[in-house]
Structures are given as C-alpha cells and as structure tokens.
C-alpha cells in the first residue's frame, strides 16, 4: 500500500517489452506531428506572408527579436498569464470542494455528476456567445437578474476591465466541472478504510482533508492543473466570440494575438515564432508543476 511511482526494471535502455507498450503511441503521434512541429520551427525563422510568395525570406532570429520588441506581445502575454493565475486556482478550489461534497453516494448522484459536466461539453463558440447575450444590458438574462435585485446594469463588454473579468468568469464557469471530475475520480481511488481509520483516530474534517486526502491526491491535482493550464494557454473560440480581443486590446490574450497575426494579418512566420515562445512558456510551467508534485523518475 504505497503511492508514488513504482518501478520494476532497473536495466538501462529500453526493455523490449516496454516497446510493446510505447510504440503505438510513438508512431501515431510522431507520424502526424513530426513534420508540422519541425515546420513550425522552420517557419518561425522566416518572414512568411501566407498569400504573397515572393515576399518570403529567411530572417533567422529576427522574428524572435521583433517579438521581444513588440509591446502588444508583452501586453498579450501579461493578459494571458493573469488569466491563468486568476481563473485556474478558482476552478481548482471550486472543483475540489464540490468533489469532496459529492464524495459519497446520494440519490441521483450519477445523473447530477453527468449534468454538471454540461458546461465543459458545450461548444466553446456557443458558450462565449451565450455569455455575450447574458451580459447585454437591457436584454441579457444576467443583467435582467441583476436589475431585478436592485443593482445597476453594466455594459460589461464595453469596459476593458469588466470585459476581462467577464472572460475569466466564463472560463471559471465552464471549466471548474473539469477539475471536479478529475479530482472526483482521484478521490474514488483513495481506500475508504484509510479515511475511516483516521475518523476513528479522532481526526477532524480539516485534518483529514489537508493531511491525508490532499497529499494522496497531489499527483492527480498536479495533472489536472497541468492539463488545464496547457489548454488555457491556448484558449481561443470562447474569448474571440465574446470580445474579438476588445475593447481595444483589453482581452487580446496571447492566443488571440497569435491568431490575429496568422489569420488576419497573414504573417505566418511571426505567428509561428510566437507559438514557439508560448510553447516554451508552457514547457517551463509544466516542468515546474511536475517536478514539485510528481515523480516521473
């Protein structure tokens, strides 16, 4: 009865049996992605307007230098990191709390759990569109409720700060059930008797949570955070349909800026370079999370 990684073979090199398990994934992912990833790196060293072929030229690291000098890039990065630092911890806390609450059998539990996931299932575009509708003054259901409660109606999407808040709220609403689901699945792997024994020993609820459950769930939570952060760094449709990055640049997250450079200005080289930078940032965050909570070793 132990947690943490259990390792069998200690021979260096890859045992032939390991290959049986690893090869299908390696082939599938590698085949599809090797060319595109290399091509993306390759593109990032070029000036590559998508439509005019004659203007393409190799410029080595110029794209990266320009990124460094680009105020809009830094602003977009700042917005994106802020988005992650605010939205994701809140999603985690809500998801964890609800998972604890649901961690027992009660009538209709399965149905309720499945329904709770609907926000995650909804088409991202439709989610953003609905929030845009709800936040409309005069007509939006949310503003309608707010006004019925006596508060003043706000034009959410016209104000830079409110618009940014709105996209964060949208993400929290949409993705906390995702955190909930993963943590809940993790909770089901904790042996019931462990908790029972702790209860008999007189451990209070708070201790049970912080001293037993959370440590046991650390890898699961870390994975949920990791996957959520990686996806949040690339969030696009929901935000785009709500604000198109506006008002001004108030909600132009890095992912939106990359899209704009790629498919509105058609600067494929510059856009690829930013994508590579985003990838490196993701990688650093991933390494940070994994090394503290996880032993892949």
């Amino acid at each position: 009865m132990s947690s943490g990684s259990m390792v069998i073979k200690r021979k260096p090199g890859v045992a032939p049996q390991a290959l049986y398990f690893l090869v299908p994934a390696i082939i599938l992912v590698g085949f599809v992605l090797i060319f595109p990833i290399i091509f993306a790196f390759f593109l990032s060293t070029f000036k590559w307007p998508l439509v005019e072929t004659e203007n393409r030229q190799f410029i080595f690291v110029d794209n990266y230098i320009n990124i460094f000098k680009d105020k809009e890039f830094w602003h977009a990065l700042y917005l994106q990191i802020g988005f992650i630092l605010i939205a994701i911890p809140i999603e985690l806390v809500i998801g964890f709390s609800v998972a604890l609450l649901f961690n027992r059998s009660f009538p209709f539990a399965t149905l309720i759990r499945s329904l709770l996931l609907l926000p995650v299932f909804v088409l991202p575009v439709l989610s953003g569109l609905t929030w845009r509708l709800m936040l409309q003054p005069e007509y939006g259901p949310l503003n309608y409720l707010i006004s019925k409660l006596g508060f003043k109606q706000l034009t959410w999407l016209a104000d830079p700060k409110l618009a940014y808040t709105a996209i964060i709220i949208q993400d929290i609403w949409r993705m906390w059930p995702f955190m909930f689901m993963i943590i809940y699945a993790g909770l089901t792997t904790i042996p019931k008797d462990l908790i029972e024994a702790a209860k008999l020993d007189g451990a209070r609820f708070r201790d049970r949570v912080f001293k037993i459950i959370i440590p046991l769930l650390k890898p699961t939570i870390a994975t949920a955070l990791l996957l959520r952060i990686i996806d949040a760094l690339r969030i696009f449709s929901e935000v785009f349909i709500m604000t198109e990055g506006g008002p001004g640049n108030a909600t132009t997250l890095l992912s939106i800026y990359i899209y704009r450079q790629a498919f509105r200005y058609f600067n494929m080289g510059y856009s690829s370079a930013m994508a590579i930078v985003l990838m490196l940032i993701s990688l650093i965050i991933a390494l940070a999370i994994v090394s503290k909570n996880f032993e892949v070793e």
Partner: protein
Amino acid sequence: MKKITKYLIMFAAIAILLIELFPIIIIFLNGFKRDIDIWSGNPFQFKFTLKSYKKIFEKSDFLIGLKNSLIVGLANTVISILAGSMASYGISRYKFKSRKFLAYSFLISRMIPQISLAVPLYMLFRSMGLTDTVIALILAYTSFNIPYVVWLLLPFFNSIPIEFEEAALVDGCSRKQIFWKIFFPLAAPGIIVASIFVFITSWNEFIYALVLTGIRSKTAPIVISAFLGQFAPEWGQISAAGTFVLIPIFVFTLALQKYLIKGLMAGGIKG
C-alpha cells in the same frame, strides 16, 4: 441520521447544479424561442416554437456533420485510449534513460497552438491525398489526445501498487496479460475520465476540422458555426443545434459514469 444527510447533500448538489446550469438552461430555452423573444429580457416568458429545430434539420449538411463527428469522436477516443494507456503504462512502469524526454515530448504536441500546426498539417495530408477524409481527422486528433491520455493516466497508474503485478508475474502471467486483464480494469476511474474528455475534445474541435475537411468529412462544429452568420448569429438555430449535439456527449458520459463506482479500488487493493 444517515438518510437525512444523503438527502441534504442531494439538495445541495441540485442547488449547485441549477446555478451552474443557468447558462445551459438559457441555451436550451433559446432553442425553442423565436429570435424576438431571445432578446427580450425575461428569459422565462416566451412563445414556444419548434421552428429553429426544424430549420437546423433542413440545413443540408447538419446530419452529415453529426455523423462525421460521431465517427471521428468514437474512433479517435478508442485509439487514443488504447495507445495512450499503453504508453502511460510503459512510462509508469519501465525505467529507461529517455523516459522523461519521451513524456515531455508527448506533452509538447499539446503546447503549440493548433493554429500554428494547422497549416503544416494541411500540407502533410494534402501531399498524402487525405484532405477531406475522416481518417485525416482521426489521425490529427490522436496527435493531441494521446498525450492527454498519457499524462492524465500517469497519476492513476502510479497509485496502483506494484504488488498486484508482482504477484501475477510470480503466477506466470505475461506482462501483456497483466496489463489488459488486471491493470486496465483497476485504472478504470482514470480511463473513464480520460475517455470523456478525449471524446469532448474531438467533438468540439474546430481548427483542424476547418482546415482538413471539405464537404464530405465536415464535422458538427463547422456546420454549427455557420449559424454564426456573416453579421449576427441565428440565435434560435445555433442554440437548437448546440443543444442537440450535447445529447450524444451526455449519453456517452452517463454510460461511462456508471463504471465510476466509488470503492472499486478499495476492494481491489485489499484483495
């Protein structure tokens, strides 16, 4: 005493559910409203109509989109879960030099924005003559779903004690048998969660679908985005279509959740 607690929890759960589902309820209701009512303030006062639902089915490629999404979603989920869980097992249980590197390289494929990979993917599949095919999409999706499965399952796999497999080895089972007959079922919670999210990701994916498909292999998100219109969305229709495509996902999830029974692990471990 216990029963009351159960019902209390249920009511709390329903309360949370209702608050959380308010926007979904709006979408659901909008599918049955005329556009004039969607923009009229009180979301619960309206004249019921089935016009939007009728219109979405009249749209020429709606059913094709659904069909393709189902095929791609299911095929993709099966392949990704199989290949991904195997790879996750390999990484979890075998120590080899390039282990960390392999794990992270899987992850990288999910770190680059899809927009940036879309164009070279298109070039790749065009050179193979696979544009506008369901196969291209299935393959493209496994490229980011397999890493997801690998990493999602790692903590679940790592938490299964080694004693099971050692006992089975002693009993003369081969590694392959151990994986499929013992390990895979034990990791059910993780596998179920992974399946649900892989299916959703495939179902809702837009960019690769846009670039790699044409009239034959169009998927549901592409068809539904058409309701966004050139200027303003067709609110009734997009809500109806959006609601409708939630049904397969919901059914899929509900079916899998039945296996997410608490205590499955507890019993297994003690044994």
